[in-house]
């Protein structure tokens, strides 16, 4: 995985609550056996009409937000299915950070595995950033993972929490499986003992 670099850029405002994984990447695009190339279909049914033409008032179709690297979203972003195609599509489009008051559990985990940082902030902070995001290219939001801060255009800084292990993996671009493989002895020992106690498993 690539290392996560700090981001300073335009944020797309998506105040709708409960943005679900079917909106992020509808099922017709889950048929791929690859991880890449899903960016063009990100938010497909909100972004294009029946004929495949762009819907001009959808946020990512507006000039200011075409290269957005951040999304500021309403509550409970990413609810629904476990499809990792959702972060794959976001990543492929160029999104590096999503800011919301809350995220659905599986989506939250999946984001980290793909180099995307989901930032949870209190409602007041998200409101300020949402307002910023609405200013298009006149505003820039800065996200600093090392110091765990998000800064609004006027410099107001919001501190966020992130699990230290997840942070380390993101900052160093670490591969989970490789890390776990280093603990293979512990797994072997556990498995042997467990197999003795619960032979039916």
């Amino acid at each position, binding site marked *: 995985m690539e290392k996560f670099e700090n981001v300073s850029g335009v944020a797309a405002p998506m105040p709708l609550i409960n943005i679900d994984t079917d*909106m992020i990447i509808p099922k017709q695009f889950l*048929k791929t056996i690859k991880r890449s190339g899903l960016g063009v279909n990100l938010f497909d049914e909100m972004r294009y009409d*029946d004929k495949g033409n762009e819907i001009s008032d959808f946020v990512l179709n507006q000039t200011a937000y075409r290269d957005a690297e951040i999304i500021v979203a309403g509550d409970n972003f990413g609810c629904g299915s476990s499809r990792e195609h959702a972060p794959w599509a976001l990543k492929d489009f160029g999104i590096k950070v999503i800011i919301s008051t809350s995220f659905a559990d599986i989506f939250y985990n999946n984001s980290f595995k793909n180099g995307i940082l989901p930032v949870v902030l209190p409602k007041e902070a998200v409101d300020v950033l949402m307002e910023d995001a609405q200013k298009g290219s006149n505003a820039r939001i800065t996200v600093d993972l090392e110091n765990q801060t998000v800064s609004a255009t006027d410099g107001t800084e919001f501190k966020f929490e992130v699990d230290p292990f997840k942070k380390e993996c993101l900052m160093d671009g670490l591969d989970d499986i490789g890390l*776990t493989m280093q603990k293979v002895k512990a797994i072997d020992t556990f498995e042997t003992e467990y197999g003795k106690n619960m032979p039916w498993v």
Partner: protein
Amino acid sequence: MSAPKTIYDKIWDAHVAHEADDGTCLLYIDRHLVHEVTSPQAFEGLRMSGRTVRAPEKTIAVPDHNVPTTLDRAKGIDNEESRIQVEALDKNAKEFGVHYYPVSDVRQGIVHIVGPEQGWTLPGMTVVCGDSHTATHGAFGALAHGIGTSEVEHVLATQTLIQKKSKNMKVEITGSLRPGVTAKDITMSVIGHTGTAGGTGYVIEYCGQAIEELSMEGRMTVCNMAIEGGARAGLIAPDQKTFDYVKGRPHAPKGADWDAALAYWKTLFTDEDAHFDLVVTLKGEDIAPSVTWGTSPEDVLPIDAVVPNPTDFEGGKVDAVTRSLEYMGLEAGQKLTDVEIDTVFIGSCTNGRIEDLRAAAAVLKGKKIKDGMRAMVVPGSGLVRAQAEEEGLAEIFKDAGFEWRMAGCSMCLAMNPDQLAPGERCAATSNRNFEGRQGRGGRTHLLSPAMAAAAAVTGKLTDIRSFS
């Protein structure tokens, strides 16, 4: 004496293979279920890094999302991408040596129905699958939840998952359900009560008299939708019903193993005074036959209610409701029982088991669906289908005018050709009413199998209590 524990605590503690100083654990996984949509990239990842599947004997694969459910499906899959995805699973299952139920196997079906049916899912286990409705298996007193594709690869390679422990939440349903009220109504009412984010960060234990009184099928329906309430998992303490259901299944323990397993399973209950971080209590008698009106599973109301007004809500929900009423083509104040439907879908991992088909058939016996109605039953597995045929349910469905399909996910998420056209309105026994879930522009109302059957007859959302 150690501190009192919840079932979740007990299962968790029994599976920690490694714990780092910061509390990050490697949780050992007993059963890994795999389907064709979320696994190709994981197997490809193994191949690229020269890794193998650590425990193929604990890994079970079955194609379900993309498979056609028409009777002639042996001729193959028309859609090229779907076909490639199913073929990739065929190939991966063979190459990595995992248990496999191909489309041609009568035991094939929705992964969450096949697992319990074959006795793969047992009390006290950790069960994962690259699918959010893995929560279903919690009905057996197992810790079961969905994972993403990177985690699928991680479990394939290491048989563990990197996890931090969730908090404990108790959802208690006291008393008994009233006639016409089902497990589906319980689970939808709970989400209506807590919201789709109410369970975020928690593992839910469902308990109380109404839960104890449910069959195993009903308990699976309840746990299935724990994810719609945002929880990582939902589970129910195993009891005699659980043991009876498991006993004799192809992969259930036998002989001395059975006795040892049973003795252990009987320790899987929440100790008195165990700590819950959150408790929600609903009265069984207060739960009504329910239906969703919007595009989020929390948009649920008793069937005798009216469509709400956006101004009844606060904050971000006002805009969300405005948007969803427009999408659903509904007016505030409209009676739910006046909403006309044109499609009925009975099936999915929520309500595609034999008991669900029995409930729907009981409503349909001797009746016909409304003229012009498109109605289909998609059994959750080939074995459910065979049993329904044996019991004469298939005939009842066919006589009523339903299509009698082969097993798969079908119109639950419409990855195969079973889809709604824009503007079509469906009464569905599945679990998600998101925009476009059953087809672009399609409108979904979630409800129980009996209510879906009644709606097929009347052509409207119907109160099962006044249906005859």
